[in-house]
């Protein structure tokens, strides 16, 4: 028996939660939304998901290899980015565009700023906005009909066939035009939109899992959604109209944004107070973009804008050190 044992400074035990387990939990939480997206939009959704995920993983691996850095894929954070990006794209997007989005997310937004933990914007969201600004028409064509029996050719084409299937306005468009919406359809997700954002049910299922696993807390999503609802109530011009308010909450990317994008650790405040401030800021900004502004991409822009304020929010909401509060003791 050797007489030498490992020596290190305390503590000597570690919690079983690791970066990898957290990222895996996020992937698991996104499975219901992904499956519903595939069910709703057809098998082409699989192709979009695979292409963004692969683009992200391969970009990160190649970058690490070329820059002679430790190989970081393996912590699943790149898979999360890829999956989130795919869920934020319309099913009809040309594959090369989806791949470009993945490369942009990882290379420009994440790795060039120093890799995991250093990016100041959510990579998936930044890529969505990048694609939206670059290709607005392609990015806002939200197919409502499935292609039931696509041939290989249709699959690999840039989605022109699917584009033909577009019919009618999205629920948010309807709301903007002052029409009523089918709330049940919106809750289940049987509506147009990006691959993963339509089903509030599937997204909330995943979010419940994340809350149960303590990966996210409800501070950001709830303060975000509630403050947005209050904004819509005050400035929506419809007063207390349940159909309008719930339609606004379930429509567009609010649910996926509030639970999956705004809660991204790296780009959200880490203090409890700061998280609530952040949520309220996002709610107000989303309200301004959606209701007062043109109504497109409200959630994305609000979150990205919020991301930029995170360091400041963290600084101003630092809790008082225990025992150093100004409150009198006793």
């Amino acid at each position: 028996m050797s007489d030498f044992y490992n020596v290190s400074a305390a503590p000597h035990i570690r919690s079983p939660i690791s970066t990898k387990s957290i990222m895996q939990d996020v992937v698991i939480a996104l499975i219901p939304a992904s499956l519903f997206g595939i069910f709703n939009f057809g098998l082409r959704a699989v192709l979009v998901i695979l292409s963004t995920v692969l683009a992200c993983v391969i970009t990160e691996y190649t970058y690490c290899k070329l820059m002679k850095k430790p190989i970081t894929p393996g912590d699943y954070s790149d898979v999360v980015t890829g999956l989130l990006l795919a869920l934020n794209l319309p099913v009809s997007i040309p594959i090369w565009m989806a791949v470009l989005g993945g490369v942009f997310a990882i290379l420009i937004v994440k790795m060039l700023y120093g890799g995991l933990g250093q990016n100041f914007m959510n990579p998936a969201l930044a890529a969505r906005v990048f694609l939206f600004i670059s290709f607005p028409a392609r990015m806002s064509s939200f197919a409502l009909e499935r292609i039931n029996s696509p041939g290989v050719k249709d699959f690999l084409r840039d989605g022109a066939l699917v584009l033909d299937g577009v019919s009618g306005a999205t629920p948010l468009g309807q709301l903007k035009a002052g029409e009523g919406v089918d709330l049940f359809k919106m809750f289940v997700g049987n509506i147009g939109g990006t691959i993963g954002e339509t089903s509030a049910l599937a997204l909330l299922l995943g979010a419940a899992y994340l809350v149960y696993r303590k990966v996210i807390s409800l501070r950001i999503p709830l303060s975000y959604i509630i403050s947005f609802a209050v904004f819509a109530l005050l400035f929506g011009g419809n007063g207390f109209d349940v159909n309008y308010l719930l339609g606004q909450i379930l429509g567009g990317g609010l649910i996926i944004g509030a639970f999956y994008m705004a809660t991204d650790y790296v780009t959200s405040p880490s203090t409890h107070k700061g998280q609530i401030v952040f949520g309220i800021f996002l709610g107000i900004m989303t309200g301004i973009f959606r209701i007062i502004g043109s109504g497109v991409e409200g959630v994305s822009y609000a979150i990205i804008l919020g991301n930029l304020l995170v360091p400041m929010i963290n600084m101003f909401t630092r809790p008082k050190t225990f025992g150093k509060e100004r409150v009198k003791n006793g």
Partner: protein
Amino acid sequence: MARLTFMGGIHTFDGKDLSKDQPLVTLLPKGDLVFPLSQHIGAPAKPLVEKGDSVLVGQIIAESDGMISSNIISSVSGTVKAIEKRLTSEGKMIESIVIVNDHEYTIIEGYGADCDYTKMSKDEIRNKVKEAGIVGLGGAGFPTHVKLTPKDEGKIDYVIVNGAECEPYLTSDYRLMLEYPHLVIGGLKIILSLFDKAKGVIAIEDNKPDVIAKFKDLVANETNIEVKALKTKYPQGGERQLVYAVTKRRLNSKKLPADLGCIVNNVGTVASIYMAVAKSTPLTHRIVTVSGDAVANPQNFYVPIGTNFEEIVEAAGGFKTQPKKLIFGGPMMGTSMFTFKLPVTKTTSSILGFIKDEAAVEESACIRCGRCNEHCPLNLMPIGLQMAGIHNEYEKFLKMDGMECCGCGCCSYVCPANRSLTQTILQTKQVVLSKQQEHHELHELHKNHAENK
């Protein structure tokens, strides 16, 4: 009943089941005994014996030197073999008295005599505690007689007995409270006799319901002693957390519990106060937990201080599997050592042997999840402090209250990226302290120089 607690903290795998149900076993040492002169916070003790002297059980072999220091008492009878530097479980080489055991256990005169503390004056009681070499047995090792002599005696309104034992795997306090509760209650009564206005609180984590029930039963007729259940959460037994849980008063690193009217002592310390004052038995023994998944028969031993850990591990059946890591003290705040041929000191509460070294993992990038902030019992921002430490930004470290860190280890425990937060913060604290010291000395030097001109 509402359980008392604090903000932050963590729930770990507690591992106490391994050793908690084995009754205490008294162990007699076979080999030489080693008594480091520094087993406490403060100045090292001054040896009173020389090589070749014979000593008795209970004899003071080194006396306290200065305001904050403590006597060292021999736990066996025999001959002084050497006074030399020996390695301790804290990883330091410390001047130590080595005694060859004659296995006779001849006691010094008066050892074990019954005393009626109600007839003693306060100073006599404090003096007996000082003579007995009692220090905080919870791990800090602060000399107890100093703690019992606060600046403003009349201000003390709480005497808290710390029975939290929040460190995972440790069960020595549990066994003591279960098997010898009257020592704890007796010790508390002695402390209470020093502070006229104080109320006694025995605070125990609720993972020990049997002990709580027992104590509640035993103090049922006491008017100024209360038993309080604490929520089981690490670091519930930390001084600042415990004082807050019991009294809602907030300590910081600059304040002693006595400044806020509290005297806090670990159950082991309180029991040894009873032994010293009422039974004239100085601090010669302590309870040591031997546990961890590598140990054959995890259990608690009542051992003479100075005994080699090798003998204790042997008594516990040795290691059934070769351990990768040995820890002295709890897994959250203890020290790991490369060997276990080390003496038991007043403050070593345990030896733990683990097959796996959970801490042997690579650090990865911070994902800013905020878990370290959330679990810090002192509301610090550990990752910010670590970055300040890494970049030698001492001003920033001070501004972010880095000096307040109590080193509980919660941040490192919860970090999903396995960052060495606690480690870097404590290290930076040391650097800042030595820089402040340096600065102070330089200042003094300049002053003296100017005066001498």
